[in-house]
């Protein structure tokens, strides 16, 4: 699960990790008032959307306006906030139409001496959380990772013991941090590692992590993602969920216990199992088609879930044909056959439907489909299924 920058900064503040003073605003007037309240000569207005790349992102209808901007007066804060709020911000990480900005963060200016990078992830190969820092903060860290990986320093740590003081000293040495700033770094890094573990984060990123003129470390930006599997033990994080930032079809699928990812092609896919669903997308692409989605109905979906899956697929205007690929294991082919017949009656199919069934109770399943009045193109195997669904969209 993703949260907004202002929410992540609240979590940091609660953990006594330094962040600049800031106020959330939902109108130009609120932004102007926030500027006055912060009482500084400058402030930064930052669009709050879940996607990154906001600093270089621009408003769809007003390409002059970027997603993050320095302002020097309450009036200017009002103008910039008004330009952003209620408009679509397009960044490298959003869909092409952009993401609606519904709130901005008005943040006090900061005396920046250096910009560093700090990130935390769980390293799959090592099976441990890893703290990563770099002196190359503020820029595109993925570029740094690709071009000069030696500039990213990593320390793995035991989640029970936390990051050790000597590890911080080592990182400070690498980053060229000395004197009293090492004390600030020790507090900052170890608190971040503890927060990452305590809240079951899947990713935490502070970019830039600023060293101020006074030699203190301050989180100028904050991005936190959480392990969905751990949310049951974090009601305080669950309440930060902002459904407005998520794809409506994906939210709907999630509520029905389906795993769905919207893509841009014309062939809708309905598959059981994540691996087989990915492979089905690959298969379509190999044969020259474009999948409209990834949709995994899971290993044990019932008739209602499969019907809902069809509703979601058929609601996508780009879908010109649907490929159902089921390998019945726990899920019986009769379940999927009954669901197809049921969905046909309830939802109605306006596009061709290619069905490939295999596995548990396959003969009975095929029989149900053959005896129904649903117009189905039956496929023998994967290659046959791909050929038939491709033929249907041409």
């Amino acid at each position, binding site marked *: 699960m993703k949260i907004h920058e202002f929410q992540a900064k609240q979590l940091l503040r609660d953990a006594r990790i330094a962040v600049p003073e800031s106020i959330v605003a939902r109108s130009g007037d609120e932004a102007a008032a926030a500027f006055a309240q912060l009482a500084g000569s400058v402030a930064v207005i930052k669009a709050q959307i879940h996607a990154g790349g906001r600093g270089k992102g621009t408003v769809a209808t007003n390409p002059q306006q970027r997603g993050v901007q320095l302002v020097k007066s309450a009036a200017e804060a009002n103008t910039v906030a008004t330009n952003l709020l209620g408009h679509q911000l397009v960044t490298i*990480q959003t869909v092409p139409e952009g993401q609606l900005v519904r709130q901005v963060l008005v943040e006090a200016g900061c005396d920046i001496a250096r910009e560093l990078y700090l990130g935390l992830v*769980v390293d*799959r*190969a090592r*099976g*441990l*959380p890893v703290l990563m820092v770099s002196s190359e903060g503020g820029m595109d860290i*993925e570029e740094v*990772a*690709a071009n000069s990986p030696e500039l990213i320093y990593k320390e793995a740590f*035991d*989640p*029970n013991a936390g990051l050790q003081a000597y590890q911080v000293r080592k990182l400070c040495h690498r980053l060229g941090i000395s004197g009293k700033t090492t004390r600030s770094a020790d507090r900052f890094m170890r608190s971040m590692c503890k927060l990452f*573990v305590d809240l*079951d984060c*899947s990713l935490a990123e502070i970019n830039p992590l600023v060293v101020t003129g006074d030699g203190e470390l301050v989180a100028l930006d904050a991005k936190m993602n959480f*392990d*969905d*599997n*751990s949310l*049951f*033990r974090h009601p305080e994080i669950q309440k930060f969920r902002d459904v407005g930032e998520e794809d409506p079809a994906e939210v709907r699928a999630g509520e029905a216990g389906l*795993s769905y*990812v919207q*893509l841009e092609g014309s062939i809708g896919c309905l*598959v*059981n*199992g*994540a*691996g*087989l*669903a*990915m*492979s*089905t*997308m*690959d*298969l*379509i*692409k*190999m044969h020259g088609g474009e*999948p409209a989605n*990834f949709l*995994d109905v899971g*290993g044990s979906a019932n008739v209602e879930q499969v019907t809902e899956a069809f509703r979601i697929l058929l609601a996508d205007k780009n879908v010109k044909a649907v490929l159902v690929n089921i*390998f*019945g*294991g*726990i899920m019986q082919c009769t379940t999927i056959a009954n669901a197809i017949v049921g969905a046909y009656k309830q939802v109605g199919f306006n596009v061709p439907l290619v069905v490939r069934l*295999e*596995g*548990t109770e396959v003969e009975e399943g095929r029989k149900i489909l053959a005896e129904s009045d649903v117009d189905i193109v039956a496929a023998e*195997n*994967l*290659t046959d299924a*791909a050929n038939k669904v491709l033929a249907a969209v041409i």
Partner: protein
Amino acid sequence: MSILIDKTTRLVCQGITGRAGEFHSKNCLDYGTKLVAGVTPGKGGQEVLGVAVYDTVVEAVEKQGADASMIFVPPAFTADAILEAIDAGIKTIVAITEGVPVLDMVRVRKRLQDINAGIRDSAAAIRLIGPNCPGVITADECKIGIMPGYIHKKGSVGVMSRSGTLTYEAVWQLSELGLGQSTCVGLGGDPIVGTTPVDLLEMYQVDDQTEAIMMIGEIGGSAEEEAAAFVKDHVTKPVAAFIAGRTAPPGKRMGHAGAIISGGKGTAAEKIAALEDAGIEVAASPADMGTAIQRALARAK
């Protein structure tokens, strides 16, 4: 011989009184698995499917000689159930449960590594398969997990995979081609799992029943790259592979918590290049998994 499990394996099911636990325990019994006990804390003394239920795994070990466990407990309690099985001396632990918190698995894996570090003979190491996996099956001998038993055919191809239904698809293709299997292992779709492809390659390489190895991977992480490097240096048996997710966009999680391309890493293209470099026969299409093993076998002759 096969790897991990065979007809002598004595299985306990942790979570046998739950809906899924009982349903799949029955299927395992029907397949011929020696399911000797069940465990559900607080329900000791009951009987399910003619099998005695205990409060603790240690009782199942002491009273029924259990040496393998199949775990169906809810995700919040799975780490505890795995640790209990390790503590009780269970050698092969198969965690089916989906949705286990990642940091719980970090702690479990640490514990497993600490214990195994004290075991000199790697054949005696404690093995955790999963979580979020379909399980392990040695055809005609022992089935631990949720896979449909009837598609498997006894033979000499070792199959390992990070995904469930895609494994069934591969096994189906192999069986249709008359290529039976030794042991099929579902490694699990989570970022951190107990057993990696490298661990299994090591086991298949020394197993005399296994003559060829089918490896099914997917985008995300670097397990396939590590496996490719291991094959290059240590595996003499023919290996074929398939990687799911060639067309998956970066940053989007494809169902499995582990299946995500992040920071441009873990792409199918990178994995396929590493596999081909190691001399592995890579199936271009998911329809081509069985024939890829045929090609790998033919090439080895």
